[in-house]
């Protein structure tokens, strides 16, 4: 099955899986009613996703860039 796909770097595959999993987790209905500091947890999760997703990708690419230079 995996042979049918072009291979992806392990770190990048992990980042992709994390992004999809975090997105699905954030949309679970239970976060709608739970509140933290006056706001639904769903809102905090969305805010975290907006910062974490590009930061994670930058970390992965930065690490790859450093490894390439070594």
């Amino acid at each position, binding site marked *: 099955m995996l*042979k*049918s*796909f*072009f*291979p*992806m770097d392990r770190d*990048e595959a992990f*980042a*992709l899986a994390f*992004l999809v999993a975090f*997105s699905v987790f954030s*949309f*679970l*209905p239970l*976060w*709608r009613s739970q*509140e933290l*500091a*006056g*706001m*639904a947890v*769903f*809102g905090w999760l*969305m*805010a975290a*996703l*907006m*910062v974490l*997703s*590009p*930061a*994670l*990708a*930058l970390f992965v*690419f*930065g690490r*790859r*860039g450093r490894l*390439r230079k070594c």
Partner: protein
Amino acid sequence: MLVERTLVLLYFAACIGIGIAASRRVRGSGDEYWVAGRRVGTWVNAMAIMATLASGGSIIGVMGLAYSQGIPATLALFAGAVVGFPLASLLVARELRNFGRYTITDFLAFRYPSQIVRTLVPILIVVAFTIYIVAQLKAAGITAETLLGIPFEYALTLATLVFVIYVSFGGMVAVTWTDVFQGVLMLVVVLGTGLWFLWEVGTPIELMRRATAAAPELGQVEHRPVASYLGYFAIWATAIPVIPHIVMRVFTARDAHGARLSLNLAMLAYSALILAAVFLIVPVGKLAFPDLADADQVFLKVMQSKFPAAVRGMAVAAVLAAVMSTTDALLLACSSSISHDLLGNVLREKASQRTIDAVRVGTAWGIGLLALYWAYSPPELISQFYTAGVGLLSGSLFVPVIAGLWWKKANRIGGVLALVTGALTYVLVHFQILPFGLAPILVSVAASALAMAAGGLLGPPESREMIVAIEKLHAQ
């Protein structure tokens, strides 16, 4: 009004000046005109990408939405686009940059050689983006009318003429430099305003606490299922990796690594812009103006009540910059769909360089003026139509592009089937001819993936040459 109008006129003059300067560099070169010579640095590209994504909706719209529907729902809508960029950097940026052409149609026509692909993709882009441009123009006209006291038609015409001039003559070089200028202006105004309020109050938590104590609905999710926001989230998350005006930015990067970095740096800046708007400016607006009839006025009201004329003038210029930095990229993508994707082969074979240059400029003017004519009396639901237009593009292009880059069994039949099925399903579900009870984007991407799987598994295997060519695109 004099100070505000003067600042806006200076801003317009700066944009035209950049366009004229860029026109000397791009004349006679497709590489310079469409992809700025493929040598845009990481930081410049990041700022240009941020400005391209941040439309009028990212300043006026985001604050109006947070004011009326609460912060969680607003963030759900905007987080989709932010997640789309890391997805794009992981799934398409390196490969498309290594492909080294001008447009997404170039890649799809290479991967799935078919007249249907060569014709349908640019037509979908032109239709979706013309609607998008009209929606942006309407926002520019309303903003200028409200804040500068200029009649809607005059404001619309002036803003359109300015960006058509710099796009048509300066191409991607002008779009890049004006976008950087516009992006900096947006960040300075929104982050500066947010930080000013933060300095006054102390911490964002304290600001939020006060605002949600006075208006608890600001922090609550509206009374509908969280899953109902999934459609908007999915539209933008799947659109960003394939939407032409963003993909063109990948082609402008110096190399694949720079393209990937710039996409994500842009999103850190964009997230800062959105989070400052909803966590720092909207709570102040909610406390000061709790009963606004038109929620979209919240930013403008805050600026009018708290800051002097010079800052208000910068705020108007920042809103216009947000509109124009998106619209210019859309116009260039539309223009490339016609003069490069649809007419490119004919022009390359039969036309002189002078004629090719004239067609590029003429196409941009034609689309710009058509959108302007339509924007004089835009349909009431134009804002919803443009989201649907973006959905149509992602529903039809997402699977063919991603499968074409990553699935070895993706073949010409699968690609064409996925493209046509995605587009048709999106239209049928959106207009409820096929009532599914799910967001059109979710249905169309699933249908498109099924069509790709059927074509790939049942059709003839892809040639060895094509597999080798795609392997090369994945090279570091």
